[in-house]
């Protein structure tokens, strides 16, 4: 009984802290959240400042990162689970991927700066940022896709092989569709991690005050960077702007997680049939 109460308090404390934070941010943000804020470019005058560039930059960044990391990650996982032969090489790769998932994100930023910005001469561009974030979330996508592939009953694979399917036909026709809900969930969770990352993009050189990017080679800013820049300013008004940007980022994140849940439910109901 006493233990139950203690565990309940532990649960509540976490929720209360989170709720307090959210309410505090929401109160600070309320006066600033309006149409002008959403549609304006950054400005040194708080009344005229907005997050248009940051929101569009974040969306660009998400799209590019997904475009790079999803095919690479899913293909790697399919290779590791369905094609690779057991052996020391496979084990080394597996251990490395698991370790990479735990590397601090700023390290990826340094890597991105050295390889994409300098060596590949992409500059501080959207593309360099997206490639850096792709590296960051690749291990997450690979691991969650592997989990999803492992969850596909082996009977389905055997049945497909037994009617004379090639390995690729088995994977494309049955294993990937059956694993799709799990893969999608993993991908969206990985992307929501990428959308909240600040450190690697600062390393790569995301700017604070830029126009809306027109191509993948343009300089960029994203929401977390914008929030970081505004909170670094001394004036109170910018604290309010930062809070408003946090609310927008939270809405984006919640929207992505909601999409993940809806997609998963959709695929699962389709799989089980009606």
């Amino acid at each position, binding site marked *: 009984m006493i233990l139950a109460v203690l565990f309940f308090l532990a649960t509540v404390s976490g929720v209360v802290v989170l709720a307090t934070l959210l309410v505090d941010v929401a109160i600070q943000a309320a006066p600033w959240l309006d149409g002008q804020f959403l549609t304006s470019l950054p400005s040194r005058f708080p009344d005229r400042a907005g997050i248009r560039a940051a929101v569009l930059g974040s969306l660009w960044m998400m799209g590019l990162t997904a475009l790079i990391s999803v095919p690479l990650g899913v293909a790697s996982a399919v290779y590791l689970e369905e094609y690779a032969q057991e052996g020391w090489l496979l084990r080394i790769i597996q251990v490395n991927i698991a370790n990479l998932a735990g590397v601090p994100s700023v390290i990826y930023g340094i890597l991105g700066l050295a390889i994409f910005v300098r060596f590949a001469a992409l500059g501080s561009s959207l593309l360099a940022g997206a490639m850096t974030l792709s590296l960051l979330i690749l291990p997450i996508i690979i691991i969650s896709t592997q989990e999803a592939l492992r969850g596909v009953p082996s009977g389905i694979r055997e049945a497909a*092989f*037994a*009617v004379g399917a090639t390995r690729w036909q088995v994977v494309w026709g049955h294993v990937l569709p059956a694993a799709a809900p799990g893969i999608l969930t993993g991908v969206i969770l990985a992307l929501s991690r990428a959308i909240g990352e600040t450190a690697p993009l600062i390393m790569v050189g995301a700017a604070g005050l830029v126009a809306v990017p027109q191509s993948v080679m343009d300089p960029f800013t994203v929401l977390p960077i914008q929030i970081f820049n505004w909170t670094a300013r001394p004036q109170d008004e910018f604290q309010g702007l930062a809070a408003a940007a946090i609310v927008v980022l939270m809405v984006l994140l919640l929207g992505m997680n909601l999409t993940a849940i809806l997609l998963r439910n959709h695929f699962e109901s389709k799989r089980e049939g009606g």
Partner: protein
Amino acid sequence: METNKSSPKDASSVPRPAPAETGDGSGAPSRNAARDAAPADEAPEADVQPKVQIDDLHFWYGDTHALNGISMRVLPNRVTALIGPSGCGKSTLLRCINRMNELIQGTTLEGTIVVDGQDIYAPNTDPVMVRRRIGMVFQKPNPFPKTIYENVAWGATINGYTGDMDALVEHSLRQAALWDEVKDRLDANAYNLSGGQQQRLCIARALAVDPNVILMDEPASALDPIATSKVEETIADLKSDYTIVIVTHNMQQASRISDETAFLYMGTLVEMNRTDRLFTRPQNDRTEAYVTGRFG
């Protein structure tokens, strides 16, 4: 897909497509020729060309020697039962016949298996082509998580079948004695069927690829008695068109449905004979002990 509810009516009497149409013109003798060669049960068995000839087959899972020098032949248009206690290697032997075992990593095989005159383990033999000719039904019903129609049609589709798919689906489901139960809901998910229906759907799925040989790994062990008898009836009906090898735990089932029975023990073939002889006059003491229920 969209028209499959209406079309079967016009297609109800479409004959089974000739093997050549399935895109697998692999040079195997046609089923009719095989049937003519082995027309009746009273034919002396020594004269019949075996459908599957296994010679000195050894198989290892890692270091475990699962099959130890098995030699046997399977006659065309017969049901051959593999019996034996758990772990004796009967499922392993069955899965060697369509090269399913090599999908498991760390396995080794020695010896030869010749099907229709072709060594299926020869270096230039494509395992995919072997599996197209030798179908398989598994212990646990394992339909694809798709519609009933797609379950039957998928194998034919990937094999390049270009004929009337609706007719093929209907014909396969009729052969598996499932058509009347599902003809009004071909678009339903296969998971909505009962276990026995799922297993007959799996049989239909194997038949749709037009194999010569069908391997069955304890196909009725997960089913209730009524579903079991339906599956057994289906097997009896299929005998005239296919060669069937069936693994079973159930000796009554082996004696009911099979023409020949092989008794395996500890990875070796102890005895193989016509089913009635093996069960009534076993030559080996161990076979006798097993078929009379003294061990196993």
